[in-house]
């Protein structure tokens, strides 16, 4: 199979993620979009692992999955905190700090 098929798929996912991160207001949705991007990366890695016959790629993917989980945990906590103080999950409503 063509390596590029996987890579381009991941590129598409990655850019979709980017779009999401930029265009979504809701914090949770932004987090989801980030997950999309990370998945794209994982697909890359696993594909390359298969391509290069080097298991390091898979290991890398595993680490990413783990850390992503931690990230999501922290991220959600922060969104929650904000929601508790600002009463809104929307990111564009937090802009006290500027200039």
């Amino acid at each position, binding site marked *: 199979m063509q390596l590029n098929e996987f*890579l381009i798929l991941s590129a598409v996912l*990655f850019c979709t*993620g980017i779009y999401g*991160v930029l265009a979504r207001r809701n*914090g949770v949705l*932004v987090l989801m979009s*980030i997950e999309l*991007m*990370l998945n*794209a*990366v994982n697909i*890359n*890695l696993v*594909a*390359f692992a298969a*391509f*290069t016959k*080097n298991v*390091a*790629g898979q*290991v*890398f993917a595993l*680490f*990413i999955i783990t*850390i992503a989980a*931690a*990230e999501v945990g*922290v*991220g959600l*906590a*922060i*969104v929650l*905190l*904000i929601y508790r*103080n*600002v009463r809104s999950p929307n*990111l564009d409503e*937090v*802009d*006290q*700090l*500027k*200039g």
Partner: protein
Amino acid sequence: MNPTVDFHALAPEIVLTATIILVLVVDLFTEDPKLPARVATFGVLGSLVPVLTLAVSGHTRVLFGGAFVVDNYSLVLTGFFLVAAYVTLLLSFDYIGEGDYYQGEYYVLLLTSVLGMVVISSARDLISLFVALETITIPTFVLAAWRKHDTKSNEAGLKYFLIGALSSAIMLYGMSIVFGLSKSTVLAEIHRYATRSTPALFAVAVFLTLVGFAFKVSAVPFHFWAPDTYEGAPTPITAFLSVASKAGGFVALLTIVRLGFFPSGDSWQPILWVLAAASMTLGNLAALRQTNVVRMLAYSSIAQGGFILVPLAVAGDVHGNAAWEAVVIYILIYGAMNLGAFAAVIAAARRTGSADMSTFRGLGRTSPAIATLFTLFLFSLAGIPPLAGWFAKFVMFRAVFEANTTTAVVLGVIAAVNSVIAFFYYAGVARRLWFEDPPEGALVRTSRIPVALGAALGLMATVILVVGVYPQFFARLGQLAFQRS
């Protein structure tokens, strides 16, 4: 591969890990709020011991098939990180102690981040670098938002988190492609691959990888989080972010560029050049307009980051280690003066009750000691002899001259101009401190400087004075870091 693990080499990490767990336990089972702090401090100091013993024992130790290396380089930086962490702790005690903060948890997170730093200075492959970097970052996301009931602090945490997560995603994408091209995650292999002619994709992949570090060192245009986060976060954390975690980013950058991408110069040099120039200029210009001291320091540290990037950007044309040394020396000195500056800000803010510049007017009259120290740190940042800053700038320019290419010289000129511009806002603060009369009803609180804070101030002041007069200390360290042993 040797199944037996060299625990001496791992001792610093082990001590730190043990400390973290200990702190957690202590926090669970005691009421004394001071105890976790003490434990954390001793842990940090304790993990300095094996660093010293390793330094004494000399020879380089390669573990896990080259994924993890303990050599002078990593030892110097580990030492730096631990000291920085220690100072940060000194700054934190009273700050955290006085607010209604979670104490034990605070130290757990701080130490975890430090653990990441200690690891990153010995990490020699993409995976370790990535993991270490995240370990540095993720706890600080939380710490930035630590003042739970202050929406600014929350905002600081949020912004830091989002930009951080994004840039690590980008970095990962880059790393994945680097892996795909070089067929390995070990830097040595990548180095070998980079010596060949590479496709354009490699250059872009390198760039995407660098983005992650650029974010950590808050290089323009990946700096947006910095001012807001610095302003919102608890000041000790700001100090920590602007020194330790930033240095972490630089170390990773240094490692990956020097041991990984170095051979394909035109993939990373232009990028770093642009980042350096942009950071210096924009950082300085933005700093001119600030009315909040912390925010001003945030921009100033962006600019300083730009200065640190200069030697890296020209490293490709420098024979020998002058450029690398310049980076390390600059990091060491920068750490000292910036920590000092933030310590001074904390001390001053305890007096004036705010970090707003207008409240600092006439501080030279109301509390001369703090004002004097603050001034010292500011002018050291401005690079005026005999304060350590001049030497940092000096080695930077030296590297530029060593490279002696047109691009290098242009960058040098930009740096020179910026170092003059920078004087404006540093002097601006000094002006408020000394030339202006205190606002009526000044001296909000005339609380004494707490011991820990005083210790931090004194320590940093001594460092910048001694190093300023006898820079050989740090110069030698920088030299050692890149000596084969």
